[in-house]
């Protein structure tokens, strides 16, 4: 069973969490071109490897947090590279 590191509750079962997809780069400012704006808005990263993604401890404390998870091995590290 995959467990995820909630910053408040510690390692918890993945069934307590909701996945909110990969994180986006910072929102572009108003000078952005149309194509870059559409790109930012609609194109997610889809790597075979580590993806930085958001999770919500929906059935726990309600904390939102970010981690890196490998899309093949499900290996999880925190965003500063710490293994969990």
């Amino acid at each position, binding site marked *: 069973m995959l467990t995820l590191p909630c910053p408040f509750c510690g390692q918890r079962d993945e069934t307590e969490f909701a996945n909110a*997809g990969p994180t986006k780069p910072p929102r572009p400012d108003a000078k952005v071109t149309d194509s870059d704006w559409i790109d930012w808005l*609609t194109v997610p990263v889809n790597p075979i490897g580590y993806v930085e993604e958001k999770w919500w401890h929906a059935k726990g404390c309600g904390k939102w947090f970010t981690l890196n998870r490998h*899309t093949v091995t499900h290996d999880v590290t925190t965003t500063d590279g710490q293994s969990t």
Partner: protein
Amino acid sequence: MGKFSAFSLAWNALSHHRNWPRYWKNPPLAKKYDVLIIGAGGHGLATAHYLAKNHGITNVAVLEKGWLGGGNIARNTVTIRSNYLRDESIPFFVKSVSLFEGLAKDLNFNLMYSKRSMIDVVQTYPKMREIRRRMMNGYLHGSSYSSIDVAELRRRVPALTGGGPDTRLPIIGAMVHKEAAVCRHDGVAWGYARSASSRGVEIHQHTEVKSLLRDTDGTIKGVETNRGTVLADKVAVVVSGHTTTITETAGLRLPVKSFNLAAFVSEPVKPLIDVIVNCPDLGVYLNQSDKGELVIGGAPDAGQSFRRDIKQTVFEDAVVTMLELFPAFRRLKLLRQWGGVLDIAHDATPIISATDIPGLFVSCGWWGGFKAVPAGGYTLAHLIATGQPHDLAAPFTLNRFRHLDFIVESGTTTAR
């Protein structure tokens, strides 16, 4: 390529069935083709078939990393249906369902096509409202969807003994989609491959495309494979969940994410369920195969994934929810489980489109793309041959992301 018939069966019986011709040829890999199709799955092979049959383009090679029909065409739950929501989607899937109906004859290949209705078991009022909305839109486009009451549902699916008035989610009604069918999924790949090969299309298995090659003017030039460079002016990427992996080698990013969707089968039992049962409120669906196995599918794994197995939590969720409605299945042994990598855009509508790279076409975002194999191949072949999207698939281009003109089908697939 011999024609399959009662006569050829009798003729080959005389030689103890040792002299049947091979389904497809294995010619050497040439340096250049008119069209390259990456991926010998359902959609790729269907595209090759319709390119040759409808457009007379036969200098085509289908390149496959593994073996023919070994990807998602071997990993789906064989449901063919057209009960979608949007005006843009329904005619496309209606076309696909009707192509499936005549496909065995078209391909001269027994697909064990079996029309058998899909019944949606409804347990919440929001789902009932959503599904009635689909029923009315279906009427407009020739996709039938009709409401039945709980007594009629239990008459048609006697194994459905759970979901009574005292349970967590009592059944409040059901919806029948009459056109729904199942067929032999491997047969679809083999039939299309045999037909395409007999018309001159080459199929190269164990030929992995490592990267796409672009000319100095930015147009597509060919592909780099583990068997060397292959050139072509037109390349179609038809590789389901690994679409972005391939297109990113040419610097093209696409609005899709890949997920793992899994299924499993029980031991074979006597005929028990003669329809496809879909339980959208529980996220589980099942049908019974010709061998008698119950083919059961559940919800996708939550995060992006490139795995081809099933996660224990997904498996347990599907089994537990299924047992709420079918308590008698508690005693069934489960034999096999598997998963596939599917890609999906956030509006859950497929993409059949030319791209910013001239000569490069993509067919992706199918999620469960089995039902769409004939129409997907039919319209992609039209796009490759004429350069213009087919009317049925015109709403499915990448332009809809440019104009933020989404066709939101989330909720009508298992992706919710």
